[in-house]
């Protein structure tokens, strides 16, 4: 079981809390998913105090929170947001996003490494949203990160694992680092695919929140993640090009 800065969830689903049809459906989805960690953000507080009600709902759920720096485009913005999140949420965990390009929400990996170093030096436990680039991954570990979160596909796209080869390479290159596929997951089968590769967790939001029945989809993801993890542990067979009969050839009756 993977350890995320000492936390070992039975269910390694990190579930986002945005875009649900209602707070009640969000709460039901979190429960049905069995997620032990949910992601949250910080936004300007309205005079009506919408943030206070949301925070009360999350606290009632009794799950850990992983605040993000979503929408930050510079090191300074991301670091300041992380500092504010630590105070408000009372956790040193931070999902570090530094966006480099708006059409794909691709991370600015140069700024990401710089921000990660500043934050780890300041005592944060950084979960960096990165790409499957092995060199960047190494730099993030050098900067003090103990978890890597490569994207599957652009955030909210639902495309699944765009680069299975790259993600598999990352798994093999960093055999002992907790790896989470973060972003781009659309279907439970995508999550299962990542877990079958040996990934340690899945972070997703849109695929559940925007489903016709978010709570049912949340449970479907939990089942897929469990199936994928068990499959990896059970050591899958290698694929081959040609058929290999499974029924014994020896002893077949001669009937031609």
């Amino acid at each position, binding site marked *: 079981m993977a350890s995320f800065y000492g936390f070992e969830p039975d269910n390694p689903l990190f579930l*986002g809390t*945005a875009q649900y049809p209602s707070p009640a459906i969000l709460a039901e989805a979190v429960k049905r998913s069995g997620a032990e960690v949910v992601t949250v953000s*910080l936004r300007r*507080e309205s005079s009506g105090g919408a943030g206070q009600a949301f925070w009360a709902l999350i606290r009632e759920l009794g799950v850990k929170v992983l605040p993000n720096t979503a929408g930050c485009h510079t090191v300074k913005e991301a670091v*300041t947001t992380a500092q504010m999140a630590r*105070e*408000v949420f009372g956790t040193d965990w931070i999902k570090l996003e530094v966006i480099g390009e708006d059409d794909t929400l691709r991370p600015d990996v140069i700024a990401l490494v710089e921000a990660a170093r500043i934050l780890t030096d300041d005592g944060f436990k950084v979960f960096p949203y990165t790409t499957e680039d092995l060199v960047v991954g190494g730099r993030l570990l050098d900067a003090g990160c103990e978890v890597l979160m490569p994207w599957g596909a652009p955030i909210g796209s639902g495309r699944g694992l765009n680069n299975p080869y790259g993600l598999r390479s990352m798994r093999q290159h960093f055999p002992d680092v907790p790896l989470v596929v973060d972003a781009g997951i659309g279907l439970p089968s995508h999550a299962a695919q990542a877990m079958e590769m040996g990934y340690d967790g899945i972070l997703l939001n849109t695929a559940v929140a925007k489903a016709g029945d978010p709570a049912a989809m949340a449970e479907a993801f939990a089942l897929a993640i469990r199936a994928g993890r068990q499959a990896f542990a059970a050591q899958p067979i290698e694929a081959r090009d040609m058929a290999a009969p499974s029924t014994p050839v020896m002893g077949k009756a001669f009937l031609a």
Partner: protein
Amino acid sequence: MTLLLNGAPQDVAAKTLADALAELGFGGRIVATAVNGDFVPARKRAETALSEGDRIEIVAPMQGG
């Protein structure tokens, strides 16, 4: 003085960040603050003096992915 509060002009009588938060109805709420792009921890709000045109950001927990 006039501050830029969460992107909008806002007149306040307060001279410190703590007093401004109370004056604007944020007292007692779970929020984090930044002045001119720098984080100001809650414990330093009372000693943080404000100046005309300061950019104040007041953020709170929100849904996120």
